[in-house]
């Protein structure tokens, strides 16, 4: 399969020798470093200055990292208190004494912040555990149910595009993902986004095509799963995945469905031409084993497991299918 040509792609087509040049230069740098006269001390000093400019990120949200930070801060504080002159010693007064006092104040504040940070990590972890219980805070935060989508059955293969907007709520952004990838027969993401926007739907797209700096439909470059993980719970009005059903691995499918359900109260999955994919990808890829999303029932089952109400329909010729799922009852 050859992806469709993109006349508007940027200049990555030309001058492909930059990578080779960089590779050559890095190899040359490694040779310099290994040479006996390489100034390791000087290079280390420069490295320290570069590190100082952009220090490595601090501890993440993990409790162990937060407690390490507490240990460091408290150790520094104790050292500052115990390394100086004893209380009441004459040498501890005056300018040096004031500087030492300020340093200790600084370290006290640092240790207090580190402790506060560790407490926040522990509180967050407790909150997560409580939220995981049935009826816990996470359940209360579920998005409000929109109007139930209508099931559209008995129409020709192209009809789903014409009537797609019927399934979509008027509130919230609508994500269109995956359309037209890998040379498939469906519309491109750009075309579908433009079509929906022209119809008054606040749609945007995600595609794995190269990033382009151009005005036009709101379509971003990137992986769908990664994008969904950067969307808040209920952050979307709906998610429409087209052609994606044909190209998923079982692992990706298993990861994708919960993210779709988390982000969007309405999920529409459309396979424009599963027959085309079966013919193109061959028998192995076209199998209908559990987790292989060539069949609409697989989508219905997976979305239902996420608490959505899902329905599926083939067009009247049995060539394309769509699955519509929402937090409300299906009609």
């Amino acid at each position, binding site marked *: 399969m050859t992806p469709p040509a993109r006349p508007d792609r940027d200049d990555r087509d030309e001058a492909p020798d930059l990578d080779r040049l960089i590779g050559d*230069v890095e190899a040359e740098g490694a040779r*310099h470093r290994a040479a006996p006269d390489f100034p390791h001390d000087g290079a280390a000093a*420069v490295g320290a200055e570069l590190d100082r*400019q*952009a220090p490595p990120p601090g501890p993440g949200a993990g409790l162990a990292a937060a407690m390490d930070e507490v240990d460091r801060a408290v150790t520094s504080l104790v050292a500052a208190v115990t390394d100086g002159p004893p209380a009441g010693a004459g040498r501890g007064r005056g300018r040096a004494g004031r500087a030492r006092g300020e340093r200790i104040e600084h370290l006290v504040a640092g240790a207090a912040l580190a402790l*506060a940070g560790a407490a*926040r990590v522990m509180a967050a972890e407790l909150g997560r555990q409580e939220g995981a219980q049935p009826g816990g805070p996470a359940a209360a935060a579920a998005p409000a149910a929109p109007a139930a989508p209508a099931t559209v059955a008995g129409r020709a293969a192209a009809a789903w595009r014409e009537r797609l907007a019927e399934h979509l709520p008027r509130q919230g952004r609508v*994500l269109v993902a995956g359309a037209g990838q890998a040379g498939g027969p469906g519309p491109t993401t750009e075309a579908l986004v433009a079509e929906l926007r022209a*119809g008054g739907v606040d749609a945007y797209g995600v595609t794995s095509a190269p990033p382009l700096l151009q005005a036009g439909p709101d379509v971003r470059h990137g992986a769908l799963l990664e994008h969904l993980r950067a969307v808040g719970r209920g952050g979307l009005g709906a998610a429409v995945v087209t052609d994606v059903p044909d190209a998923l691995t079982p692992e990706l499918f298993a990861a994708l469905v919960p993210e779709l359900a988390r982000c969007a109260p309405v999920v529409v999955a459309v396979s424009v031409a599963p027959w085309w994919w079966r013919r193109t990808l061959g028998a192995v890829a076209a199998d209908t084993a559990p987790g292989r999303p060539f069949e609409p029932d697989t989508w219905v089952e997976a979305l239902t497991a996420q608490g959505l109400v899902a329905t599926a329909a083939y067009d009247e010729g049995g060539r394309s299918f769509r699955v519509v799922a929402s937090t409300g009852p299906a009609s």
Partner: protein
Amino acid sequence: MRLGLVVPRYGAEVVGGTEHWLRLLCEHLVAERGAVVEVFTTCALSAATWADELAPGTTEEGGVTVHRHRSRSGRDPRSALLRALVSPAPALVPEAVARRLVELAGPVCPEVVAQAEASTCALVAVTPYLYWPSVTAAARLGRRVVFHGAAHDEPELHLPLMPAVYGAVGGFAFNSFAEQALVQRCFAVAERPCAVVGNAVVEGAGDPGPARAALGLAPDEPFVLGLGRVERAKGSHALAELWRLYRSRRPAAPRLVLLGPVHDALAPNADVVVAGRTDEAVKWGALRGAAAVVVPSAWESFSLVVLEAWLAGAPVVVNRRCEATMEHCRRGRGGLWFDGYADFEAVMDRLLADDGLRRDLARRGRAYTERTFGWPAVLDRYQTLTDRILASLSPAAAPAGAGRAG
């Protein structure tokens, strides 16, 4: 459309990437797209103090209406101390401490935010993400905000109040794909309207001869250029160290010239010329005369310098730790990068020995800059973004194309 802008300082005298860029954007939206733009800002010129230096009141500057207010407080020196305290684990500090840091960093000026909120501007651009006016305006103006965060991966971005700031606004104008990726990694806002708008870059006038004379160089003396604020956080001190070491091993190498206002003292020496701030003609002459331009900063959200260097015909060398400048080099194929002294030495050896390579890199970079960052392309991208934000405010009432920024 009537567009507002909340920015901590504004004016032709302001030296600063995002403030400079937003001023140009506003002026071009007025002149070329018929927009009406109001700016809500303080009387400050210097980000180091936020001291009131300009007169308060309303003026007309470049077709833009500018409202200036005196600040209640500027940058408190204690903000540096608190920043150092929170930097090891910024995400874990109590929110009240984070708010205290923002207050101390200033400028605290409630009138700026109140006036923007009360204005009739349909959308209000807000920049940059980390100062008091932006943090406050995001909460008060909410989805009316076009957020020009100019974010890079520094401690402030991870403060616990930032998810609410980023989560409040209507959409994002990013300077680079790297900034977009960073923001969407840090905050659950990927569904919001956004666009990589970048900055527009226009070539300026200036000849190498007079520039060399102004910089105290010999008439035909070759040199390598570092352009921008001389500041430790911008990598100037690291670059000076790199160059001192390089010249100790390559005595025939040209001198390094650091051109830009000096914020952190850096003593000149036999290897490094610290030229200070000069006028635009000298800057462009220096760019045209430089054998290469080194951009050592690890924290940039766009970097005009890289693109200006390419327009002037100079190849660039950037810090591998900076995603934004790396993005320009990868996309424009007009620059090389380093991650430490050994790489730096190999890159400079190669560049300084090969005129053809330098020309080829600069030519590719220029083509990328002209194609991607000319004013028409940038204004089109910006208008498309404002359309999307307006549409998302009221999808049914504002289909695509309604209420453009022009």
